[in-house]
């Protein structure tokens, strides 16, 4: 069976859940081979082995993470050229898609983005136009490069004993064109990552102000959830832009999505419509969000949300 390369998403050695999802998917399509870029592999090794990485290419050189995406694409292109893998899987994050894009140009291959599943014959399933259409697509030129949306595949433990291979790549001047001089961490809380969280609680226009977002955060924390916000809330400056869920923000696909004070315009729906279970609290019974919900309460969020938080805390 062909090797399926998986670029491992990690932050300073901490493996993201999506990497485990991709390893699970890769082992369905062929033999998962993880690609680790940057320092920190030793600490992540056991986790990758646990989720079925039969092979790991380790490129530990810190220089590879000192420039915007190009070095990662250069490394992957080299591995594709040397090993002829069946496909390359990356996470469909903003950066993952950019790496996929550069790799596609370097290898003359087709790229599929925002994929939610891949089946036999490397047919990829996409959910497009805000979840309104399910399309199947495949790559017909080169090595398929597939960017898979986080939370689309359930990660399964499948212990393996990885064969490790240290690799390096010579960077061209063009690869080193955009130098990262500083990584600025603005919001690092205890909450899970928005795109990876099993539960997301989002607040919108109805929340009414930055201070009131403590209500959303309180509810999120009672559930161990990530916090999101609609564009109305981020545009108003009530919550940071990087937490925006929607067409011009992040696309999330959690097990449970709770929309609080969000009317559900297409702008927002496009970013959360594929959530498995949807709950909404809104005072307007005509709000379009209610067309999507599994359970909705028409009411004042300032009454309902704190009561819900208290009730969840009580039942724990």
């Amino acid at each position, binding site marked *: 069976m062909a090797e399926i390369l998986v670029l491992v998403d990690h932050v300073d050695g901490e493996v993201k859940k999506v990497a485990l999802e991709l390893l699970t998917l890769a082992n369905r399509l062929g033999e998962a081979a993880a690609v680790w870029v940057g320092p920190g592999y030793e600490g992540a090794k056991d986790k990758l082995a646990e989720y079925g990485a039969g092979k790991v290419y380790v490129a530990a050189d810190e220089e590879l993470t000192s420039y915007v995406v190009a070095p990662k694409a250069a490394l992957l292109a080299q591995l594709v050229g040397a090993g002829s893998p069946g496909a390359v899987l990356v996470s469909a994050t903003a950066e993952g898609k950019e790496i996929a894009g550069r790799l596609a140009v370097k290898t003359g291959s087709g790229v599929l983005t925002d994929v939610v599943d891949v089946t036999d014959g490397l047919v990829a399933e996409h959910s497009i136009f805000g979840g309104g259409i399910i*399309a199947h697509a495949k790559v017909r030129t080169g090595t398929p490069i597939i960017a898979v949306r986080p939370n689309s595949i359930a990660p399964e433990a499948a212990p393996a004993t990885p064969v490790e291979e240290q690799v390096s790549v010579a960077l061209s001047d063009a690869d080193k064109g955009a130098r990262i*001089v500083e*990584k*600025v961490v603005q919001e690092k809380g205890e909450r899970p990552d928005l795109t990876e969280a099993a539960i997301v609680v989002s607040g919108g226009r109805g929340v009414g102000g930055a201070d009131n977002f403590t209500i959303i955060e309180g509810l999120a924390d009672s559930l161990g959830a990530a916090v999101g916000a609609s564009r109305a809330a981020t545009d108003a400056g009530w919550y940071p832009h990087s937490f925006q869920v929607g*067409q011009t923000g992040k696309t999330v696909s959690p097990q449970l999505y709770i929309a609080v004070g969000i009317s559900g315009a297409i702008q927002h729906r496009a970013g959360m419509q594929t959530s498995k279970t949807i709950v909404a*609290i809104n005072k307007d019974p005509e709000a379009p969000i209610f067309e999507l919900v599994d359970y909705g309460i*028409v009411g004042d969020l300032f009454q309902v949300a704190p009561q819900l938080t208290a009730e969840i805390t009580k039942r724990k």
Partner: protein
Amino acid sequence: MNIVVLVKQVPDTESPRKLKSDDSTLDRAAADGVINELDEYAIEEGLRIKEAQGGEVTVLTMGPDKATESIRKSLAMGADKAVHVIDDGLAGSDALQTSYAIQQVLGRTGFDLVILGSESTDARTGVLAAMLAERLGVPQLSLANKVEIDGTAIKVQRQTDYGFDRVEASLPAVVSVVEKINEPRYPSFKGIMAAKKKPVETLDIAGAGIDPGQVGLAAAATEVVDFAEAPPRAQGQIVTDEGDGGTKIADFLASKKFV
């Protein structure tokens, strides 16, 4: 400074968006066209850089006749001129081919700075800036929420999940922008009138130096196998709060084993 802003006309997200049954490409006739929202931020950033540094802003678009609407709006906002590549041979091109075609056109226009929105609301692939930077061999300054230029030195803040990266490079470069970067201006009446007199160069594939064998549906590196409308979500239960709404949601969540 020679600033080229890439603009894409997309179906209005408020109108129904469909794929065509014969070739699985976007049915552009079925929906109203609008300028891709993030591209307005790209135009605005281009105009601000021009206002600070001097130079010229050229709008570049590829697409059917209808895309002239987006060109007109871009010119009305303040862009100086436009290049419109219009050719049936481009229809059905995927991202890889589109980046090739744009590279060819940029070879004609030249550039110090190429600016584009970080993704379009229709395809949402978010790969174009990266592909272009790769093809052009220039720095990729993508997902920028702040751009500073000093001579040929350019610094951007690249938006990340944890905050942002400070990135430095030298011009020429490709910059993609996120919506936090600025607040796009509305075209003024004066701008709308002036736009009518601004030059719009129309090119076909041959005129743009694009190899017809490398673009279009038949040569695409990807293909849509099939598609269908997603099954509608089953109507859920909607209850009016009578003082126990929070408790009721908790009951629902418990029934689904979330609590």
